[in-house]
């Protein structure tokens, strides 16, 4: 690989973001961009080349489903893999997210090993 892959994390909880970051950092050398709301993600996307998006569903301003819907109707972002990271209570919303085109979902508290495996699979092509 020539350039580092960029992972975008959208979650309004700084602690949750920190946990995601440390999980990803343990896996390998990625560029990680964090945002705390859907708006920030929308703002950032045109400026950054993002290779993978991890998003929460419950966020201020626009939620994760709305973000996914936007990504999947926009040719520039259509092919970016999206993982939903949300909790058990949002099962129905997670189902919807999958219909909208999310690639994977993880239930909080998520299993770090599973997240790492999924990231490797989507970004490096190795399970």
């Amino acid at each position, binding site marked *: 690989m020539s350039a580092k892959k960029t992972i975008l994390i959208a979650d*309004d*909880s*700084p*602690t*949750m973001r*920190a*946990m995601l970051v*440390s*999980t990803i950092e343990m896996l390998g050398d990625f560029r990680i961009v964090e945002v*705390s709301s*859907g*708006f*920030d993600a*929308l*703002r950032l996307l*045109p400026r950054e080349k993002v290779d993978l998006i991890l998003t929460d*569903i*419950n966020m201020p*301003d*626009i*939620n994760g*489903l*709305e*973000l*996914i*819907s*936007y990504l999947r*109707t*926009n040719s*520039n972002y259509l092919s970016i893999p999206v993982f939903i990271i949300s*909790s058990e*209570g*949002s099962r*129905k*919303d997670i189902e*919807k997210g999958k*219909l*909208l085109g999310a690639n994977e979902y993880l239930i*909080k*508290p*998520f299993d*770090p090993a599973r997240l790492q495996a999924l990231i490797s699979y989507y970004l490096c092509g190795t399970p």
Partner: protein
Amino acid sequence: MSDQGTSHKAVKEFLAEAEEVVEQLGSELADLADLADGGEQNPELLNSIFRGAHSLKGLAGMFGFSDISELSHNMENILDSLRLGKINLGQGLIKVLFGAHELLTSLVRSVEHAGADRTDEIAACVSRINACLVPPPEKQPAASPLQRLGLPERIIGALTEYEEHRLLDNLNRDRNIYNVHTSFELTTFDEELAQVSDVLKTCGEVISTLPSMGGNMETHIDFEILFGSTRPLAGLQALFENNDIVVTCLDSAGSKPAGTASSLPSAGGFIESRPVDAVQQSSSAALEAPWAATAVSSTSDDAARSSKSMSRTVRVDIGKLDELMNIVGELVLAHSSISGIAVRMRNEGFSCMSIDLSKAAKVLERKLTDLQKGVMEIRMIPVGQLYEKMSRVIRKIAREQGKKVELTFIGADTELDKLIIEDISDPLMHIVRNAIDHGIESPGKRTSIGKDEKGTIRISSYQKGNHVVIEVVDDGNGIDLDKVKAKALQKGLVADIASISDRDALDFIFMPGFSTTDNVSDVSGRGVGMDVVSNNIAAVSGMVDIETAKGQGTRFIITLPITLAIIKALIISSAGRIYALPITSVMESLLLTDADIRTVERKEVIQLREQTLPLLRLEAFFSTTRSTERPREFYVVVVGVAEKRLGIVVDDLLGQQDIVIKSLGESFKRFMGISGAADLGDQRTILVLDVGGMINETMRVGH
């Protein structure tokens, strides 16, 4: 614990966030309860509370705090049912939610010190929550009317379960459903969108906001806002001057057969209204929505500011700021030694270089002052943060006691050192609890004595010189001074009632174990007396004063220094020892001889203008011995906090200096009259005197 290895730092981060979430949950719950009292509901508020519980659960789960996770999970559950309209919000449920929140708060607080097993408590709370989960009889028709609404699939597909519920609820309330299409530039969309949302919120409910592709993807972004309102289409369109905003009616309540809310129009046709020319429409817009224009202009600033403050704040450990402040303090000391060198050089004949060095030192001094000010400002937070927490507690207590209390806060933006704010939170809360518990009368009694049924508590804060004053004023019953005097007599504190002035009587209130109420109530009588309040305030070099009028109310006046971190001090010497006195509490100093001192009731006093001023000798106060002879002429430094004055006898005044107070640690806390130590810069360490504590102690011994 999770296998990510929960480091201490991570736990700290978790705690900081969890505390914030819990705090916000509490004030939102109080708002919710208030609204419910008035028979209102606010879906947005409810959703925000749900989100709070939801994120707390997720966090606690990741960190393996199963207690917190379990409790917040159950709260989230019931809040979810509430927001989805599966159950109704009643007084019983509000009480359960408050209870759960209280337990949650205490669980979060006890994370750091692994305490007693709370499993039973949590289990009890959870079962109370679950008891409320019984749903009311099914009233929703099974078939979702959403499909028949003819909403674009793209919008429906991205609705969360909650948003779907809100849409249905709006339909059931016979509101029109609109799609507001907007287009913004990518650089400013959030502020502009917030403006639009704010305007919309004044006349209906924003159900969802879906971003979509704009005409030019690189520069623009479009949004479809799903919006429910009773207003007609023309009225809404008139709200927006911007031609990029197109309001479309998706479902109009008027088009339905009367009476049946759930039956929906069979044709999901779009009734579209092209944006109307703003000028042409302006007169009717002014009639229909005279507030619209002002709403837009006033929200634009706020929106810009709030979105900025959200993304532009940094959370910093106060310890780091302390370190920074220490470094600044050391720089100040380094500067004074440079100035000292300049003076020595001049004396030794290097006048040219000395002038240059003095100049350089002056520049350094100015910049140091700026730096010091900057660091100080970072530590300052608005007193308003305390108020939020307090208003929650006040409303809760008032509710519990069946009293009606109206709260007003004045000067919430007055700033105080973060550490001081933390330390006065408890005492302030205690004073306010007291005001409700003992001050404000029951609504019945208030009406019978011609007062408004609602009692008022006013908490105001303002800056006064180098101090911040916080006043808590209630219009309750006042403190019964006769009762206080009788109690003092009964406790053997005084020989006869006639000899006690009202002023003295108020001082008794701050004595340990002094309480006039015979039966201890649940609220303020938790074994914590006013003495603890006054000690806690004295610990941050503050002072508390009371004014009271029987039947009219009580005023507590708390005077606090703005910061404790770095202060100007008067350096004094007494009996061969050097001390620092915070300059903010020094009123004046007098040069006296023994002849000026009189003795009243075996206590030394001097006559200062019309007042008799009690004196304090440091060697007696600290029980140290004097190796040198007392000077014939000596100084009395008059110190005071709030309305209290005391003269401290010192041998000499050595000058003024900026000092950084360093804490002596827990083990020295019990020594009255010392607030810390400071470095003088010439390798001498001196004690910093705590004026508030000394005054308190002297007054106490005096009785």
